[in-house]
């Protein structure tokens, strides 16, 4: 075994020394999030690890939901949309469970400093993920309305916005698992883009509504979906801010301009 790990290390050091981009193997000592802090008790570590894994699973589920919801919106696929809506109940259950675990950790182990930040960050991200899941269901529900008027042209910008929001959620979670502040800041930055897109989409929807009376109900649905997407992006920003808090211990909320 020792020989094995040695060769791995060797191989890794080779990969990093010549800076070869093709090598996907680079050395990184396991998870950044679970790195032990001083005096961390074994029980706390185990609990933290369990909750963390559960949170990661939840985030995967939520990402999957968003991607499915957007696909259903693009193809007006009600089956897929209903699948997304059904998943929300599971997400709710997991969210409650993670919160309970975090509260238990706070009560039992009374963590301090970095560990406290870890637990609180997990609670916050958990909360944000649940909100994102709810908003995703909103989007999926709008698909059911939109199928009523198949001729209604869904603005292309809405798809673009959906993609942007999805990638923001993914990037914020990537920032979380890598504890990558730069990524978190770039997520916060791209929120302006989504807001801008939202305004443009609403403008287009207004034009459509003026054009044809029959398009008012689907346009309102689209409007709602657009708003939900915008809020999803906001929650992605929240996650990114939580990551910054967790790493730096600085609360950057409400002051994006100066935080850099």
């Amino acid at each position, binding site marked *: *075994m020792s020989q*094995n790990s040695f*060769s*791995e290390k*060797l*191989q*890794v050091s*080779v*990969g990093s*020394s010549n800076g070869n981009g*093709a*090598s*996907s*193997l*680079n*050395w*990184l*000592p*396991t*998870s950044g*999030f*679970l790195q032990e802090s001083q005096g961390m008790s074994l029980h706390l570590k185990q609990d933290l690890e369990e909750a963390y*894994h559960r949170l*990661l*699973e939840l*985030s*995967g*589920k939520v*990402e*999957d939901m968003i*991607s499915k919801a*957007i*696909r259903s919106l*693009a193809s007006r696929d009600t089956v897929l949309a209903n699948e997304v809506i059904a998943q929300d109940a599971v997400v709710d259950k997991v969210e409650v469970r993670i919160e309970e675990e975090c509260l238990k950790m706070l009560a039992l182990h009374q963590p301090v400093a970095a560990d406290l930040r870890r637990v609180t960050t997990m609670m916050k991200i958990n909360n944000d993920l649940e909100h994102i899941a709810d908003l995703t269901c909103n989007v999926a529900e709008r698909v059911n309305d939109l199928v009523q008027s198949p001729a209604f042209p869904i603005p292309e910008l809405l*798809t673009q916005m*959906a*993609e942007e929001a999805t990638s923001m959620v993914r990037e914020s*979670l*990537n920032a979380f*698992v*890598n504890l990558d502040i730069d990524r978190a800041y770039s997520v916060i930055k791209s929120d302006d883009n989504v807001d801008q897109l939202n305004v443009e989409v609403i403008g287009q929807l207004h034009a459509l509504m003026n054009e044809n009376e029959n398009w008012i109900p689907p346009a309102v649905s689209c409007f709602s979906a657009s708003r939900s997407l915008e809020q999803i992006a906001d929650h992605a920003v929240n996650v990114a801010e939580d990551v910054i808090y967790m790493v730096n211990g600085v609360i950057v909320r409400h002051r994006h301009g100066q935080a850099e």
Partner: protein
Amino acid sequence: MKRILVLSLCWLAVSVFAGVFGARYIHSIDTQKAELQIERDAVTLKQIVASGDWGNPLDIDPKWKTIESDLEVAAILVQNPSQSSGTAIPQTAWSLAASNGRRLIHSVPLENQAQLLQVTKVIADSVLLRGWWFAWLGLNVAAIILAVLGVRAVRKESLHYKLQLQPWVEITETQVHAGTETLLPKTSDATGSVATAMQRVGKYVNRAFLEQKAANARGELVLGNLREGVLAVDAEGRVLLANLSFCKLLNLHQEPSLLRPMLEVVRIPAISSMVKTVMQGQKTLEQDIELGNPPTYLTVTASSLPMRKGKPGVLVTVRDETMVKRVELIRREFVANASHELKTPLAAIRAYAESLQLGAIDNRETALAFVNNIITQSDRLNNLVQGMLQLSRAEVGGALNYQEFDAIEALKPCLGGSEALASQKGIKLVVETPDAPLILESDKDSFQTIASNLFSNATRYTDEGGTVFVRLFERASDAKEGEASTEPQVILEVEDTGVGMKQEDLERVFERFFRVQRDRSADTGGTGLGLSMVKHLVQALDGSVVATSELGEGSKFVVSLPVKRKAS
């Protein structure tokens, strides 16, 4: 350091032991010598006493007589042996004995038996003993000095080696990373042989290292360029390997992923649940998943990965099935479309025939109309079958009859078919051709099929009062600098001001039976095979066809064919 201490302690013990024993030995020799001497002295004294030199032996005072320089002898006649005392010995002798000598007493009985001649001798410490101790001390001092000097010399030497060897280690370190042979500086002293040895060892290490590196690079290259995504996870759920395709297919960031928890790297519920199931003892799992928008269809296989030691991990492979799905969709649509196209005229023919059977045959005028309709529909059916046959021939790239012909002349009959429909719909047909004949070496029939298909499409999908432009011209080979010279081409452009189509439809317009709008065929009467045929024929003739279109503005098809047949 410890060894030096032990060594010096040993030395100390040995030297003290040797010194003491040597001294005792010298002492005993001295004593023996003194005893012999005192016996000789006693004999001399006895003779003196006997000769009466001392007068009355009883009156003899203690008298010192120096026999040799360093030994002084005192003799006393003791009347009563039990009363012997040495008090009569002069002070000088005593002090001498006390400071650096010993006292030896030897008693000799005289002839008269009543008297005892007691000879006392003071023996000074011998020069030999003193010499011995001096020698011992000198030896020890010399040894200490030598030891100190030796240690200092060794220290200096080792420091020298250390200084000399340190850069070698650095050189080796940097050069092994760079993968080059290590060359150590040549030195004349003892380090030279070390350098040679090190160099040889370094050579072997280097070779082994480079081989290992190459093997790793090969493995990584193969895995990285595999089209299938591969992910290996150990029993603790940590990533052992994730290749490039895996990251690409699942749209993951190319983060360093080694030994990180899989959940951090791959947050796809379907895959993590599969990994979990396989870890719990399932042998192999396969699942199709859809990801992203537009969706990519992936087939994920998870199987147990036996490790050299410990519990087995999981090997996940991901295959992209998007193309397969699309091809399947096209095939399904083709079958549905073909049967639909064939069914429509057949149903019409059957309806007319039934009407005739039910009595319409008696009414001559109606019957004639019906029969005409039957003929029209069967013509349409025939066209369709012909088209399909032609298309399959074109797809196979069957026998093409290359010959030289005038493209302008060849174009004229093709226009004829469409002109009727065009004038009927009030469409203006604008034909622009060069004045000089345009000689083309190609298959004339194929060229005409291409042209007439494009014309009929253009007129069919243009509303009344529109315009169809037909342009035929030759583009000379434009050999620009730095670019590969292109062959001279004959360009056929057909542009209309018709309905046009959406960008996404444009991509599929060359598919068989594809129609922009499903309900269009009824009023335009196309077979849905025309453009597909155009594409295949153009390809068979080594040309190319490009379609551009704007919804509601019209479409433009540009066919370019090589003027000369490509030498195969």
